[in-house]
């Protein structure tokens, strides 16, 4: 298990970006996600997908940072989606309220379709 988060950014199109995480979403990991997300947002990308396939652990500080990113995205009329969460992380997001304003998907394809407005 890795405790240091790595983020890989992919741009399937001009409106949507995928951030693939690998590691612990804690303060350091959350800051790294925020850094990448804010850079994309300042470039006009307001539809973000966080693919957590390789993340097995998240703490409350990481969640508060994800909530900050979500708030900023919503302020700018954007959308945030998560996909490929472990059952534990999915349950945590439900409890902590992240799933109230962001959408959780089992697979990237359906998440991207939702971000593009192709599905509800």
């Amino acid at each position: 298990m890795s405790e240091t988060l790595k983020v890989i950014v992919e741009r399937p199109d001009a409106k949507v970006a995928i951030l693939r995480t690998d590691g612990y979403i804690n303060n350091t990991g959350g800051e790294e996600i925020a850094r990448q997300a804010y850079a994309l947002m300042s470039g006009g990308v307001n539809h973000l997908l966080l693919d957590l396939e390789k993340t097995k652990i998240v703490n409350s500080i990481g969640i508060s940072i994800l909530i900050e990113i979500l708030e900023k995205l919503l302020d700018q009329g954007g959308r945030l989606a998560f996909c490929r969460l472990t059952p534990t992380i999915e349950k945590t997001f439900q409890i902590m309220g992240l799933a109230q304003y962001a959408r959780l998907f089992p697979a990237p394809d359906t998440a991207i379709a939702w971000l593009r407005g192709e599905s509800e």
Partner: protein
Amino acid sequence: MRGGADVLGAHARLAAIDPAASGERLLGDVLSALIAGAGASRGVAVDPVHPSRHAAVGVSPEPAVLERLGRHVEEAGPSVVTLPAELARALLTGADGGPPDARVLPLTAQDETLLLAVLDAPPADPVSFASVTAHAASILAVIRMSEHVQRADFELKYRVWELQSLYDVGLSIAGTLDFDSLADDILLKSVSLLNARNGTLVVRDETREGGVLAKHFGAPLLDAGRLDELPDRVYRCNTPEERIGALVGAPAEKLLLAPIAAEGRSLGVLVVADKENRAGGIDDFTAGDVRILSLFGNQAAIALENARLHRESVEKERMEREIELAASIQKTILPASLPDVPGLRLAGGNRPTRQVGGDYFDVFPLPDGQTAFCVADVSGKGVPAALLVSTVHACLRILLDTGIADLPGFVGRIHRHLLGFSSTRKFVTLFLAVYDPASRRLRFLNAGHNPGLLLTRDGPTLLASGGPPIGILPQAVYREAAVVLAPGDTLVLYTDGITEAVNAADEEFGMQRLIALALEGLGESPSVLSSRIFGAVSEFTRGVAQYDDQTVLIARAC
């Protein structure tokens, strides 16, 4: 040049602030309203609760000055109401130099500083400006209250998350016996809920190489071989001075340890390290953290105990099945009754122990009127021993058809077969005898077995001649011996389950008791003597569990 105060404009700006606004955008909006209401031209604002959050309008302070501002506010605390005049001027220093009259303006409500602003001029109309500051303070107070509510909401959700995690681990414990995955789950949940950076879980596990199971998240915090050097209670190390035993040298700043114990036995330990905060620093572990980690430690103990009990239950079931199988093999091999043979009266029996050993006895009437009989004892217990008995039985049956004139050659063939067959250092002790009623000659070969007890009118004699146990020494040499039996002479063959039967005082039944019994029973039939021996051994052991089968075979010359 100083512009005029726009009090109405300031109120309009404040009224336009989004109640959901936060952070630097909010600071900037409020600061703009204050500048307009005061008739100032530039200003800087800082959030006393988050000193790194600031906004500047009409000026771009040097990063070093902003850093000083943040440091000063942090040191002064969230109730800060003023700034050093030199710092206030430095914040507003622009291309035209610092303003001579920098004003520090705290916005407060109920003794709480909501915002600290520095403006480059005093308000042009202090009375009207007071309404602007009151309006701004009320908005900030509402937003601050909203933040409090949000934080409380987050805290509440966090408690639900904590309870849910403990509940989930409880469910997992009930639903799986795979401690390995449970240990991963418990470790990850502990690290996650305590905002720790690292974690280590180590438990004693004799079924694993090295005797321990160690799980780490991040750098290992403990040497798994030093479990004995850890406190047996929940232990917090928030300072280097608190490090003891195996915690000295752990690669972390602060540590929290919970023992994993059941019924007073230490099973292992769960340790987490370095509880991080939002500012990137490391906080002390609190009493609440101790409570959470203790609960996870207790759950790990329950999971371990469950896994152990399950392992024991499976092992017990396996052993019982094996015993049943071994007993069934043994039952099919041992003779149900002994045949009538020329010149001998035979009696005997076998009493298996609960573990089912490898005793064997048999009688083979030969076509030429002779009779072969044997007692054997194979090493080991259970199914492996029963299979070896089966092999010896098959060898004897098959080889007897080829003749038994040469006893050492006969036993040597079985010996060589077992050397090739038995790769697990199993061996057999065997007393094999052949009686010829015509010559009254008893030939025998004792391959490492208990000496045969021959009772004649001259007294008891022990028949030990033969060689080592078969199936163990490749170079073993066997030799036979012979005696001539007079009518009434009695040969008692037995296994060590008879002579080594133990009583509650851990005394063995012994050879002397067997000899005395045999001498007393000379006037009785072989079957009565056999029963008398089994009865005496039972009387001696008085219910103490025995670990070796007991076998007796008696041959009396007619």
